[in-house]
């Protein structure tokens, strides 16, 4: 006999009743900013493909516009939050071992932050 799946009703605002759940949901919602910036990167490369003059116009009309700067700052906050929560969750997700011993979670988190810092500084040095 085929059984029918029980789908429990759930209020849309269930995550607003608890601080930890709200934080969890905000972290999940930062994904929209990650995908948004990925699409924006795609648009930027597309503008480069169109030619030097077209990119120059895009640079002055879009990149230097007020709304783009506002979007950039908001994205930086949310994507930064996304990165921080990812690094903090790293030992739970990976749980790396050294031989038989489990590596101290603080070491894993520190290694992630260290790598983030090194990569970010290296990229900034290359670009600037």
């Amino acid at each position, binding site marked *: 006999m085929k059984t029918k799946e029980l*789908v429990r*009703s*759930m*209020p*849309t605002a*269930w*995550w607003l009743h608890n601080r930890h759940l709200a934080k969890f*949901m905000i972290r*999940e*919602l930062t*994904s*929209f900013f*990650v*995908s948004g*910036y*990925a*699409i*924006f*990167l*795609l648009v*930027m*490369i*597309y*503008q*480069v*493909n*169109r030619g*030097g003059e077209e*990119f*120059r116009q895009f*640079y*002055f009309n879009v*990149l*230097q*516009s007020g709304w*783009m*700067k506002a979007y*950039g*700052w908001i*994205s*930086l906050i949310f*994507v*930064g939050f*996304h*990165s921080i929560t*990812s*690094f903090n969750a790293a030992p739970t*997700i990976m749980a790396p071992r050294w031989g038989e011993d489990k590596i101290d979670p603080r070491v894993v988190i520190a290694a*992630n932050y260290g*790598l*983030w810092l090194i*990569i*970010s500084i290296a*990229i*900034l040095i290359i*670009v*600037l």
Partner: protein
Amino acid sequence: MAKSNEPLVWAPFFAGAGLSALLMPVLILITLLAGYGVVPSKDLHGLLNHWFVRLVLFFLISLSLFHAVHRIRYILVDLGLKVARGLIAALCYGFAVIGTLVALLVATGLWG
């Protein structure tokens, strides 16, 4: 044991999580600096034309999309769209696949 296709989406999700966490904040910062004129148009154009930068950005765009849609899929289900979860999964991963194909065309210079 029941077979699951979850590893297929978990692998790009996990790779995208790492890559976007490490690279995206500094790239957004560079875009902002360009907005304030600190990174000139010519420099940004030259940077985005370099083959290695394009290779990295292709993987970043593709894996970040897979990472984001995997989370968005579960957000939508958690927000009460449980009955449409099959459709949501198809739309989310379909979007990431299309985004990857577009990224491939754009990064290789075939489109634009």
